[in-house]
């Protein structure tokens, strides 16, 4: 039996966190991928090219547009009998849909895995990453969300899977999509960016986040924030990096005016290189930083922008 991965996509192709979920799935068996929604031609073609995928299932229906949990879970449950594992990335979609699938299958889901030991045994962070739990499932079928930051995504190109439409049964109509208000940004998504620069309470207000822009532009970085900065209303919640926000693991993470609360560290401490700029030399962020600079961010940020510009 094979494993099934629910893929998310947009106009530019299969999203990176979904390709990380495929990377985890490859360790478990032959990988089939599911794309669901409307106008699936481009998404199915993109899915068929994803490395490691042997078959793409397409579920085309207006009811599946936006992947609302109620119909999407019903679809996955209908497909479940021929699969040993059902996976998705730990994203807003994965966290919304997969637990619903698990309950309908009478399975305890295994959320946000960071490692695969064998077909039944997985590693997942608990307590905001302060413990790494190895858990073994006694369920016959496993329903899993995958922490994208812990698995290098498989290549978007190189595969040549077959594409097969699935027949759709009744999908529940108890929920309806009304609208989406997605932030318009030229910058990469937080969870996919090679470089992330985040501001904390030390930024003092939302306008000062503009000080991060020239640096982000120069480095091709995504801009993030600590929960303290979000709670204070400086920036919207989708900027939040941390236990209750997004988990990131970029090549370079620059924390500016962030003290380093446990819940923030949980979201970024797997970054390859961490830089901390803070005027308080006692700030806990320095304990996880590879490079620490004790400085007033209002002088350090313009200097950093100028220094990067120089070369």
């Amino acid at each position, binding site marked *: 039996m094979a494993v099934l991965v629910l893929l998310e996509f947009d106009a530019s192709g299969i999203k990176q966190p979904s390709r990380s979920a495929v990377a985890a799935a490859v360790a478990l068996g032959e990988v089939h991928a599911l794309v669901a929604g409307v106008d699936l031609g481009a998404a199915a073609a993109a899915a068929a090219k994803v490395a490691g995928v042997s078959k793409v299932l397409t579920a085309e229906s207006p009811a599946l547009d936006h992947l609302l949990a109620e119909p999407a879970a019903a679809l996955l449950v209908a497909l479940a009998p021929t699969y040993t594992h059902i996976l998705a990335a730990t994203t807003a979609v994965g966290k919304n849909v997969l637990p619903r699938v698990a309950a309908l299958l009478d399975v*305890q889901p295994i959320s946000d895995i960071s490692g695969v030991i064998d077909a039944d045994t997985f590693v997942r962070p608990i307590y905001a*990453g302060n413990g790494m739990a190895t*858990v073994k499932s006694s369920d016959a079928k496993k329903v899993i969300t995958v922490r994208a930051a812990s698995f290098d995504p498989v290549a978007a190109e190189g595969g040549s899977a077959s594409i097969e439409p699935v027949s759709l049964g009744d999908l529940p109509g108890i929920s309806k999509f009304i609208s989406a208000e997605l932030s318009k940004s030229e910058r990469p*998504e937080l969870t996919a960016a090679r470089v992330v620069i985040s501001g904390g309470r030390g930024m003092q207000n939302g306008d000062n986040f503009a000080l991060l822009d020239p640096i982000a532009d120069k480095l091709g970085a995504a801009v993030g924030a600590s929960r303290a900065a979000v709670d204070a209303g400086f920036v919207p919640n*989708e900027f939040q990096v941390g236990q209750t926000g997004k988990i990131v693991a970029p090549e370079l993470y620059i924390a500016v005016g962030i003290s380093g609360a446990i819940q923030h560290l949980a979201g970024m401490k797997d970054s390859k290189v961490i830089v901390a700029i803070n005027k308080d030399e006692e700030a806990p962020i*320095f304990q996880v930083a590879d490079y620490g600079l004790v400085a007033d961010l209002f002088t350090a940020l313009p200097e950093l922008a100028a220094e990067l510009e120089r*070369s």
Partner: protein
Amino acid sequence: MKVLVPVKRVVDYNVKVRVKTDKTGIETSGVKMSMNPFDEIAVEEAVRLKEKGVATEIVAISMGVPQCAETIRTALAMGADRGILVETDVDLQPLAVAKLLKAIADEEKPGLIILGKQAIDDDMSATGPMLAALLGWSQGTFASKLAVEGDVITVTREVDGGLETVALNLPSIITTDLRLNEPRYASLPNIMKARKKTIDNKKPADLGVDPTPRLTIVRVDEPPKRKAGQMVKSVAELVSKLRTEAKVI
């Protein structure tokens, strides 16, 4: 409309947790316990719905050791009307919790159940959608705004990259995100009043549920430690080291 609010007793979010030396779990003895922060937001939202005249009664539910009654008392002090404690020493996982909550919902027949989006101990983020599945109800997870009109609840959800608004048929399950509201502190008179409110005790067997965990914790390890870093004296030194030493820019 009756509203149920499940509340979980967890290690307080300010506590620096430690892995037990025998690697069987996290040290919880002698550690301050509190209501899961997202559940506080759930209680607050239910109380606001009652203040608006949408909710008629709020029932706070907790499960686990007898001390979970304290967590229910906190919810009662914030404005919940009565409590239900499901007492067990079994390690309850989301599937068991969802089944127990379904059994209670079958008895209580609420119009809305509001839960935290995740508990800050096991970080599973699963119970809300699982309960919705078992009841066959709609679900509005990661809610930052909600409005009830007739038989429909409109929910603004915090999704990757922004907000999404959905309309859900009632009865429904809501899970709370950070910005839904700011929970109130219970006033002293309300804390006193909460002592007189009733808490019913039940056992999983009373609800016809087998709470046996499906996941075995093989072991819990400390997360890998990061190597000690270095302090730099200037922005110029920082940029130079990022270029030549770390080679990330």
